[in-house]
């Protein structure tokens, strides 16, 4: 049946037509950014890079076009990870960016206006770690509706497991610690989720907060018992390594001892990026499964969910276990990346930081966690840069006198403003922007 014969299909097709342009949008944006940057720099190499970038983007765009389904979405298509062509092109663009960006940052690129590129590299790594933890937190709190303030307890759990398995037992084997932490996180997470079977909302929030304090006691005891004054050292002799059988991979060159020690921002990026991307894709995938949709059903109305044949208890515990496992893994990554975890690493402020991240990023969307953690870590750096470089900011003495305090105030104000006016957060704004742009571009072209 062709689109013209069936009115319903025609309607579906019509809602689709604008998206042919929509699919180009990411590439247009991607092409614009280098030009903007290029306009502010004298670096000739930059134009080459920009040209190559655009060429590759054009290629990807051509492929995206080719993959575009015509007409209605079938159920199979609807269940795809990237359903629409625009989804697909954004995903392609993100992957491309993730792969190319570090090379740009690590090369001798001369940035305009003393831009602190190397710092941003460190920030990107932290964003990856936090995005993973925040996405898992969002899966639990936003998507599954199980309000929990215990996520930092699972970061601590990850650190403990990392300390036991990764440092005490194996002397710096992060690869052993990661699955161990996931396992421990799942088990302890399910246990911590038990109150959710009886409690809801406020009462669940308080119960999980209690769990946080109990976990902190465990953490402090462990720290003092085994590591004395300085906290666990994950760096130095305990730095993780890449297995020797992986050394054939391009770009992974062992040092003179035949070892590849993960150290420095560039190398860490290549470890953190795949793990984060995979774990976030994993969580997005879970949401699409029957199990994942049960989470949302339980969130919306658990009584009717149980009438639909969903095992509510199982679903809640699943959500807790899944989220905690990923958070614990991000705890391991953070420990090894930062290099040490001490008495102040898991305080209440950290709990609040994660809350800020998911609010600003956008509640109940996995994407929001990425936006949120990027914002959380980039804002201070951007603000620092603005204070130093931008004339209209530089002249305000008040801003330079209280930099960290104003960072904090901005974050607070943003949380309030976003919750008041844009409860969907940055992810929602981004979606609105995309919709607005494609709609306003499409309006003249019925």
């Amino acid at each position, binding site marked *: 049946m062709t689109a013209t014969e069936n009115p319903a299909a025609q309607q579906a097709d019509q809602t689709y037509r604008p998206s042919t342009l929509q699919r180009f949008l990411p590439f247009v944006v991607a092409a614009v950014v280098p*030009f903007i940057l290029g306009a502010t720099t004298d670096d000739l190499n930059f134009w080459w890079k920009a040209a190559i970038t655009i060429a590759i983007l054009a290629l990807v765009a051509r492929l995206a076009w080719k993959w575009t389904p015509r007409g209605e979405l079938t159920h199979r298509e609807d269940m795809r990870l990237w359903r629409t062509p625009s989804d697909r092109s954004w995903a392609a663009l993100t992957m491309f960016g993730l792969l190319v960006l570090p090379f740009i940052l690590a090369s001798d690129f001369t940035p305009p206006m003393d831009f602190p590129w190397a710092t941003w590299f460190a920030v990107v790594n932290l964003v990856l770690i936090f995005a993973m933890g925040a996405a898992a937190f969002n899966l639990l709190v936003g998507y599954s509706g199980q309000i929990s303030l215990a996520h930092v307890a699972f970061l601590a759990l990850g650190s403990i497991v990392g300390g036991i398995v990764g440092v005490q037992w194996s002397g710096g084997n992060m690869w052993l610690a990661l699955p161990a932490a996931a396992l421990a996180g799942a088990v302890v997470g399910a246990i911590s989720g038990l109150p959710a079977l009886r409690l809801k909302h406020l009462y669940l929030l308080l119960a999980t907060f209690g769990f946080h304090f109990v976990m902190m006691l465990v953490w402090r005891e462990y720290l003092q018992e085994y590591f004395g004054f300085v906290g666990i050292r994950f760096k130095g002799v305990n730095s993780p390594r890449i297995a020797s059988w992986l050394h054939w991979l391009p770009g992974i060159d062992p040092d003179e001892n035949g070892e590849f020690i993960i150290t420095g921002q560039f190398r860490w990026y290549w470890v953190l990026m795949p793990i984060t991307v995979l774990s976030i894709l994993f969580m997005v995938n879970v949401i699409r499964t029957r199990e994942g949709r049960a989470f949302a059903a339980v969130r919306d109305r658990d009584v009717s969910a149980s009438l639909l044949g969903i095992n509510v208890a199982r679903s809640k515990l699943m959500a807790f276990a899944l989220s905690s496992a990923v958070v614990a893994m991000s705890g391991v990554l953070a420990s090894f990346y930062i290099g040490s975890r001490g008495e102040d690493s898991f305080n209440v402020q950290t709990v609040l930081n994660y809350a800020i991240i998911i609010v600003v990023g956008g509640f109940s969307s996995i994407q929001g966690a990425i936006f949120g953690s990027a914002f959380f870590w980039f804002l201070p750096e951007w603000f620092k840069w603005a204070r130093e470089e931008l004339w209209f900011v530089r002249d305000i003495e008040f801003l330079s006198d209280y930099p960290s305090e104003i960072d904090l105030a901005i974050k607070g104000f943003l949380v309030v403003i976003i919750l008041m006016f844009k409860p969907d957060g940055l992810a929602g704004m981004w979606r609105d922007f995309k919709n607005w742009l494609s709609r306003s571009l499409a309006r003249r072209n019925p």
Partner: protein
Amino acid sequence: MLNRWLKLAVVVFAFALIAAACGNDDDDTPAAPEPTAAPTEAPAPEPEATEAPAPAEEEAPAEMTVPDNPDNGVTSDSIRVGWMGDLTGPTASSQSFNSHGSEAYFECANRDGGALGRMFDYLPEDDQFNADNAAINFTKLTEDDKVIALVGLGGSHISTQLQPDIETLNLPVIGPPQTIDIQLEGDQYFNNLAHYGDQADLAAGHIGATVGGIENAVVMGISLEVPSGTEFAAYVEQSVIKGGGTYVNTLYVAPGATEVTAQMVELQSAIDDQGVNYVTLHGSPGAGLVVMQGMADVGITDVPIIGIHGIAANSIWTEGPPEVSDETFGIHSFLTANNDIEASAMMEECASLAGYDGEHLNLNFAHGFLNGYVFHQAVERAAETGELSRESLTEALKGSFDTMGITCPIDWSAFPYHSQCGAAFSLDAASGGMLAANPFAFYADSFDGEYGIEIG
């Protein structure tokens, strides 16, 4: 169709305009950073001094010149030096003074022409009591700013996390505000605070002198429940027992505690049962105040206190209950401007120049101030080798330095590089600054270098 693209083009153009507007303003891209010797006494901004550096060079006096080393924070007009610590967060009240001291010193030094024809570019970074921030800040300082050294490094486990990188980069760190074992292992830490073990010895000596011989001392420790608190308590215990005194127990106070009733109950019963006649105290000034208020509340006013350098902050005496603070001493390795020292006038002047009036009476300010001064000396000494780099600076630091009387003469010629200097302080009500109970020399015996016990 065309309209759509037109719209897009307008958006793009607007973006580009905005970006260009931002970019044009401050486009001092180092397009031609000639490795010239910079003009000497000149205030640096020579208009487009790319082609003709010659006239300036002629007038150069016999001052040392070194080539630029942008990878090590030495550019044609500045020497970059970093500071990391907590300017906000629970430990900020002691650490921020440290940064202010360094900043004040560099303000003065720059007013007087800087060093080697360059200005000091002092870059303090706020860790906010958070190891993640510290990781970013360290990257910024070492990879973007490429500082030649750090004149401060806060937080015990923050220095732990950075130690491997500091060694790899051969980055000298002058005067980290914490003294923990980890800093004894690194060749890059130049510490001008006495080690915890020495401070414990000093405390034991002071206790002995007060109660008529250390063998008469019955000591109770009160520590913040953090690893460094445990460490200090263990050193005190060791020192007191070695001298023949009695160490009863260590009481722990939770960070952020607002009252310490239970600890005071235990202290009271230890006083009654075991005759405790001295208390050693560890923690931030805030925690110290909480303990002192607790003692005042239950009426323990006749047991003197001696605390570690975090406690040796003015606020302990100005804000604390007088009946307890009268008997309180804090151990520190520095003198403030109200003491009869060479640097008094300069510290006061620099403090007001930097906008930190009154802070020259604070021990941590003096510490930061001296860190700046030592760095200045080391830079000039390193320049004698003909190049200024992290390596040459590290080598230059392995020697002795003038301290203008702020602390004992520094001699870092033998590893481990830390101070052999300390005294017990209390507030001088007349001047509002900290005054040592006895000169540094009085306590010199306490610095026997014997510590480093295994704990935990």
